[in-house]
């Protein structure tokens, strides 16, 4: 009974996502989740029954769609939740149901999400879980490549990737990445240049207009003088500070040595 109802609901849910009717999809998802609880074959009980396979397939599809939905809604927390639930299906039901065609794509999205949230350590932990064969898939290769570019500092490539992304869902995630990337690029420029033309700054930081650059410069306390952005040079302050003798630190060190030596002798 519950299975048939849930299947019908899933159909409507998919329709709603297809029509981009996100609020309806959201409420349908809520109903679907309630139905899923009533199915005995789903994790964590894994009860064996005649319809177990159908139930598992259904549960998996619902969650896959839920990930896509949360992605479209730009709700990262919901996406993380859905994916965590989905992972149980991918890991523990391998022997029970055929592998999902969407599995690699879902993992790719999850990696992308971790990148967007700047959770690099978790990104690598997740990556280790993906078997080497699947890592050759473009869905996984893209986030891996992006991560490399981020590490190198090739921000222009990251932003270019955001502009011509493969699918709508990817585009949304990558657009969020763009803001993070801009802040990174700005903090690099701050250190690397002494002064920069406004036009160049606009290009480097990938702004649409000079006015936007000026607003951004104000936020970061950069001075704008005759068409140049002038970054503060901290280098001069640094050298004077290093010349002073750090007496307090030296005294502390000496006291520690004295104490330790006393213990030995």
């Amino acid at each position, binding site marked *: 009974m519950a299975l048939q109802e849930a299947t019908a609901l899933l159909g409507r849910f998919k329709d709603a996502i297809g029509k981009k009717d996100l609020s309806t999809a959201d409420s349908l998802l809520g109903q679907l989740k309630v139905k899923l609880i009533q199915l005995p074959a789903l994790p964590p009980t894994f009860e064996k029954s005649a319809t177990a396979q159908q139930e598992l397939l259904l549960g998996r599809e619902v969650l896959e769609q839920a990930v896509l939905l949360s992605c479209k809604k730009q709700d990262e927390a919901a996406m993380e939740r859905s994916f965590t639930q989905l992972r149980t299906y991918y890991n523990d039901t391998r022997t029970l149901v055929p592998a999902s065609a969407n599995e690699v794509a879902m993992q790719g999205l999850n990696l992308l999400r971790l990148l967007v949230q700047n959770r*690099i*350590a*978790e990104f*690598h*932990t997740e*990556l*280790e*879980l993906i078997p*080497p064969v699947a890592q050759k898939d473009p869905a996984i290769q893209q986030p*891996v490549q992006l991560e*490399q570019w981020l*590490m*190198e*500092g*090739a*921000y*222009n*490539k990251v932003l270019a990737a955001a502009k011509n992304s493969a699918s709508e869902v990817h585009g949304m995630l990558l657009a969020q990445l763009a803001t993070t990337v801009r802040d*990174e*690029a700005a*903090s*690099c*420029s*701050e*250190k*690397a*240049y*002494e002064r*920069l*033309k406004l036009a*160049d700054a606009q290009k*480097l930081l990938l702004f649409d207009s000079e006015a936007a650059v000026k607003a951004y410069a104000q936020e970061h306390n950069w001075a704008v003088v005759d068409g140049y952005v002038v970054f503060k040079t901290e*280098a001069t302050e640094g*050298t004077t500070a*290093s*010349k002073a003798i*750090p007496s307090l630190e*030296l005294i502390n*060190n000496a006291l*520690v*040595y004295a104490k*330790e030596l006393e*213990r*030995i002798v």
Partner: protein
Amino acid sequence: MEVDKPEVPKENGAEAVASAAAPATLEDKLKSVVALVEKSVKAKDTRLLIGRLLRQTATVRKQLTAANVKAFLRQTLPADLESRTFLTGQVEQAASSSMESDEATTAASCESTSVLPEVELYAYLIVLLFLSDRQEYKLARTVADAAVARVGQFNRRTLDVIAARIYFYYGFAYEQTGELESIRSSLLALHRTAVLRHDAIGQETLMNLLLRNYLHHNLYDQAEKFRSKAQKADQWRSGQQYCRYLYYLGRIRTIQLEYAEAKDCLQQSLRRAPSIAHGFRITVSKWLILVRLLLGEIPDRTEFAQPGMSAALQPYFELTQAVKAGDMRAFKQVAERCHDVFLADATHNLITRLHHNVIRIGLRRINLAYSRISLAEIAAKLHLNNAEDAEYIVAKAIRDGGIDAVIDHDGGFMASRERPDVYSTAEPQAAFHARIAFCLDLHNEAIKAMRFEPDAHRRKQETSEARQERLAAEQELAKALEEDEDDF
């Protein structure tokens, strides 16, 4: 992965010769071990068990044959004990499958009707050793299952050491048959019991088995969660287990990009590993090399040239050379050529991460060599697509402190800053302090690691008998250290 794999005697001929020559001594040795077990149980002294028992077992291990294992079972276990029939049956199966002639032995049968649980489980352990050395992993698994079930029926602290060894072979047998994930929950249950009973050695062994189990399936997240939540003593009872733990921790930290800590752990682990543990040392070295490269250090050439390791480390050596030169093209070549090796070592993802270090090192070389260089030139030298890419990469390198330079966007060049004299800064002082702190720490650690017998201060004079025994024990220890440790 050949880490932790007990040495498997490969030449059957040599083994047969050894068993023909030494059955008498083997029997004696086993008998003395059993006597030792009985004595230590009586004295409730677990310390004796840890050291001597395991060392003596290691010496008999290579001489075990089906015939003398059976003889040992007949001698030590009473006839009506279930375990005896079970174990004998398993050994016979192993012997028949390897087509070994089963010469009839006329060993005296055990007369007593009861036996200490420690001795009984020691018999299990001997059978497990025998089976794993024969690579009869299916049989070993059945025996291990039975042994673990039997251990669960007792709650004796004197049993801990033997139980820990049994757990180890339990995990080993399952790993060899490729069903590691199936024992995860039972290992967790055993670990919980061990913690509740303050069974330190079992706790350590089981924790490593679990970590190994998780890492085998690349479940770094679970491994780290378990590791951080599990109860750990400040001081590890077993050096070998600690060494292994450090290796697992190092791997977890590497994946989490905490390279500095990973390096510490792996280095410690490598230092603590006995020189005979070849497979283990090679694996740790591979990880350590990668971590150091990721940290921007270049490992010394001598590290690759250690005896017996140079062949296994060859791909890593080539990789290091490419990174050292900052040569992107050579790096890509090595990564492609040795891809299968890296895949087998499960280090291919780390190699991908190295990519940006190669660029960084190449950039640093350029920065040192030129006081001013155009961005297009940099792009050409580093095999980047164009000057624009180079500009972003240089900017990030400057921010991260990799190089000290300024970019002039209008001129399109990078100008290196004057390098200040290092000796005018606080740098040497900081380095000196770090070294002193390390030495002091080492001293404190050494003191903490010292162990004394509980009533050592009370005993004033030792009797001549005790003295002789002590000397014998010391001699044995020295000998065992030479041959060394079976568990690597």
